[in-house]
């Protein structure tokens, strides 16, 4: 079957809710340890202040709760092993149903392949994607994963949909992908890197026609 374009997606923040993924795993992890309510409350203050990707939540927490240091390794291991029910970005199934009718869909992610594959599968959106690349060596903004993606397709257009302005679009642009910035945080951007900025993920339907 003829497919017109390739639409390549980032996972976190575009298909799946990344903040929810971090927050829910922390929440479930703390339930497995005997940690005071005050300590957990302070953890969430740090989480909100520093952001979900910050890797030193526990270090900062241990300044006021030194006992955390004793269990830090175990807590982190539990956190990494914790699997949660993923939360998809609103309307993502509708978008994927629409786009997959006459376009190839693929993934470029910086995450670990096994973990990301499992998350897509459990979210029941794995079947939409023809190619999945989770390059942990040449991470975005490297152009390498985009070059590899191009190798497999001979379509009219290549699109890349990302939400991280500083990492998603440099490699994509250098490999002549049309870049779609899912800019729901209203970040300022340069038009040299971004072809389309959208706030509603369903706006992609109009861009690919």
């Amino acid at each position: 079957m003829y497919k017109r374009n390739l639409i390549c997606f980032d996972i976190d923040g575009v298909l799946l809710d990344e903040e929810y993924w971090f927050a829910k795993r922390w929440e479930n992890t703390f339930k497995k340890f005997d940690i005071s309510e005050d300590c957990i409350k302070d953890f969430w203050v740090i989480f909100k202040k520093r952001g979900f990707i910050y890797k030193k939540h526990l270090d900062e927490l241990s300044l006021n709760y030194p006992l955390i240091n004793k269990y830090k390794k175990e807590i982190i291991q539990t956190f990494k092993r914790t699997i949660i029910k993923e939360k998809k970005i609103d309307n993502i199934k509708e978008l994927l149903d629409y786009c997959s009718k006459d376009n190839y869909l693929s993934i470029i992610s910086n995450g670990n392949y096994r973990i990301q594959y499992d998350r897509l599968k459990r979210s029941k959106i794995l079947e939409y994607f023809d190619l999945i690349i989770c390059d942990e060596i040449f991470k975005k903004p490297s152009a390498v994963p985009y070059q590899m993606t191009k190798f497999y397709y001979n379509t009219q257009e290549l699109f890349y949909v990302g939400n991280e302005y500083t990492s998603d679009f440099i490699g994509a642009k250098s490999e002549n992908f049309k870049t779609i910035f899912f800019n729901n945080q209203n970040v300022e951007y340069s038009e040299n890197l971004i072809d389309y900025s959208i706030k509603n993920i369903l706006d992609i339907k109009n861009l690919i026609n």
Partner: protein
Amino acid sequence: MNFFKTFKKETIQIFEIDNLILKPISKNDIEQIRIWRNEQVSFLRQTNLINSDEQISYFNDIVYPNFVLEEPKMILLSIFDKISTDLIGYGGFVHIDWKNKTSEVSFLCDTSFMNNPKIYKSCFLNFMKIIIEIAREELQFKCLYSETFEFRKNHIKNLESLGYTQFGIKKNAKLKNGISYSSMLHQNKLSNV
């Protein structure tokens, strides 16, 4: 880059390990390689059988011009058995990305080895040991890639025993007996990127 200096001067550079010898691919080898490729077409990205003329044209037009380039797109080597001196396969670096210092590795051996997993494994692992050493020491590559159809389970095990890890999947990569198969994408980090 010693490898290319000698390569370009047409000095025959030979790499040896255990029972294998690798040399730059010569015109004498390409007909046997064509026969093996056609016999093993179900394991390759190649979809059609190739005839002798097509093989000669491919090597003259695509492969050999690379020998004189400063940054060739591919480096192909013939594999010989050290004792019998028989040609037993070929392989090397393809889709070389000089900017990012990465390459895909290709490998194909005598079709008779395909039915003997022990011999196949020994040949493949020894070949890969040389390839990884050339990639790391001579070419200063940072990473090697590989694409393998999912039904080649032993080959995937062999790759993973060399430190390759899966980083991707391409669905519908091969149609075999009416069934569509995926290919597994593996990578091997050679140095810090």
